[in-house]
């Protein structure tokens, strides 16, 4: 008898991250799959955050991590489980504080695998900072 492991769908994954005290992380194999995930997320009612402060304003939201947002996203994910997140706007030099209402939030980060590997070696240990992770 063989045992089969069922890979959960993106939808199932997002049902797990809903209400979680840690952010979710979606790892795309490449840019093309990342775009596909973006379309799926949009289709499931998730709103795209263009900058990190948007994450504190939206209930179902995702942020695509790239070089410019990596530090902010990492800082956000690290603080998220601690009950309070301080977001610092380097341009305006202003801090804003956000208290996650976990029960009503579903926040995920989306990153391409190669970028994730680079970030990990730079010391941004995203895999430790987030909760559930998904890859197809």
């Amino acid at each position, binding site marked *: 008898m063989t045992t089969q492991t069922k890979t959960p769908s993106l939808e199932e994954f997002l049902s797990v991250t809903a209400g979680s005290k840690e952010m979710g992380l979606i790892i795309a194999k490449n840019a093309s799959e990342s775009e596909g995930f973006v379309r799926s997320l949009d289709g499931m009612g998730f709103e795209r955050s263009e900058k990190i402060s948007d994450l504190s304003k939206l209930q179902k939201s995702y942020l695509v991590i790239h070089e410019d947002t990596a530090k902010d996203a990492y800082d956000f994910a690290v603080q998220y489980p601690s009950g309070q997140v301080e977001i610092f706007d380097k341009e305006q030099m202003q801090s804003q*504080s956000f*208290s996650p209402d976990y029960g009503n939030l579903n926040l995920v980060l989306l990153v391409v695998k190669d970028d994730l590997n680079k970030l*990990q070696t730079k010391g941004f240990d995203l895999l430790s900072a987030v909760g559930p992770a998904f890859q197809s």
Partner: protein
Amino acid sequence: MRSPERQFNALTPDQERQNDAPKTPEVAAEKEPIAESEAGISYLGVTLEKAESTDSQFVPKREQYADFINDKEVALPLQRDVAVAFLSGEPLLVDGGTSLGKTTTVRKMASELGWEVHYANLNGATDVEDLMGRYIPNPHKSKPEDPEYIFADGKVTSGLRQEEGKVKVVILDEFNASAPNILIRLHEVLDALERGSEVVLSEDASEAVQVNKNKTKVIALMNPPGKGYFGREPLDPAQLRRWVYKKLPSELPEGTFSYATDALFGATPESQNITPDMFLAAREQALTPEQLQEIPGMSEVLEKYKEFHKASKELLKSRKVAEDQPQPFTYDDRMEPRRVRDFVLRFYNGDINETFQQALRYYYSNKLETDVDKKKLGELIRLVEYKPKVGESKRKGLEREEKTGAPETKRAATPEAKLEGPVAEQIEAAIEKLGRENVFGPQEVEKTFGVRLAEVPDVPLSIEELERAEKLGQMLVLRVDKTPDGKPMSMEAMNEILVKKWKKEGKGEIFNSADGWKNWIGEEFFTKEHPRLGWALVSKDVLPESLSKNYLEQTEVIIKTLKEKSFKDLELPEEYTEAIAEFESKKKKLAELMDSDWEEAAKQLAELKITQLTRQTIPETVYDLAMYHDKNNKRLLADTYSWTASLDPDGYLVILGMFGAKGVLGNRGEPDDRAGILGFSLARRL
């Protein structure tokens, strides 16, 4: 009916509680590890004041931490140690694995205290200006004369600026991932905080920000270098000297994991057994450095501390401790002694040995990760103690008193009674078998209570009995029933004698509230009841097998102990044979009475001959505890209760113990009660 085990709260610790519920038997909760009052929060005894002004987006919301799990291995000690650092204004660096909840713990404490949190993660791409501030285009420019650029505070600067009624915590997360230039700048900030001076913002044409460590608390957090954490190099040990360094485990300890998991799944976690030694208590007013020299034994402890410091450094240097810790550290020759001194000033509780050892655990043991290493250092810490010299000649005594500056000199100016003859020999034999620290004869009576006996009763003990007493951990006490003025040696009299004496000697108190005791136990009892004159052999601690037993079961333990230990292979004295026979004949009826009429059962149990021969009364317990503490500067029954032979005015059997710097606590119980901290001290009157 068997009662469930219960934790006894003292009926006598303070007047307020006494007035609230003086005569109601209470099944009380354990001493709360985290206690809140209107003004502050106490973390294992270390109290921090709440902020006056809490209206700020940077104050974490308290409801976020409703499910925070206070386990005894990590969360509670961490909060206590953070509280100590916050209280003293020392910067704290906490090194531990990611899953331990370091940031959450600090934010949770801030939420309770209403303190602001200013957070900066130093990992990558953070520059000095992010932390200290920089010029930015003026977003409010509306007129030509408005400046083109304005200076905006960085994350650290906003935490440093003082605002009326606010307290701010600056969290520097992932401290060891920070760039060297940032560390240098942050160290300038720490130095300014320590001095209470100004931080010069070179980023803002040298504006100076006045800083105050009472208003700004700095805590750095880091994951252990290596161990799978990329980008974390070990810090230069020299960079750690400004910080009070606390090492947490790299992974969640098994006990914490189990407790937290049970709590998460709604299962009732096993009782945590928060022990009294986990608590610290800060003084309401810190001592001054000048007052330190008035503490008896300080110079001896200081000498031992110097030896300890050297030995600790040697252990570290030879890698006999902290061998596998990736972050090297030192025991700094300048910083550690200053910190230990400040700890003693703030936490001295009347027991210099205890306070000093707590300080050494905080500043030395806390840097170690493993229990094995902590145990090695703990063995050295235990040696840092003051042992009063006993039985020394008058001349030596005076020398010691003059050296410590204690005003006891005058009191000792009259010659002590000189003891000769058979009694002197009997006492010497007892000292030989039990140790000098465990024998309290006429010299000790005079020294503690000022009573000089005209005649000293014989010590009716054989060598064999003394040997058995030594095995049972007993001390030999000569009890007297009158004060030097010929009044009863009552609790009131003992209090009057010891209040003045111990205050001068820094030994704490015998009763926290004499009025509280008087109200509870009755004025007649408090002012008249006295110890019975004569020698007694008293167990220094409660017998382990007497714990969690009701009064009747404890009495059975007494008889078993007498037969199998105290008088093993010896003939039982006639009075004990009679007392045991009496108990055996009444045992069944007493058991029934405990169910049907506990007050009558309590009365009959207290009157039993075996009770009268082997249990202390309240004044006797107080007397014995006082004698031991006065001579040895160490408190017996510090974390347990002993059930006495006395009844309170409502007919309950009285319990004494939890003897701390604030005095001995009292409680009471029905005969069928039992508790894990309630036993008895076997106290044979001779």
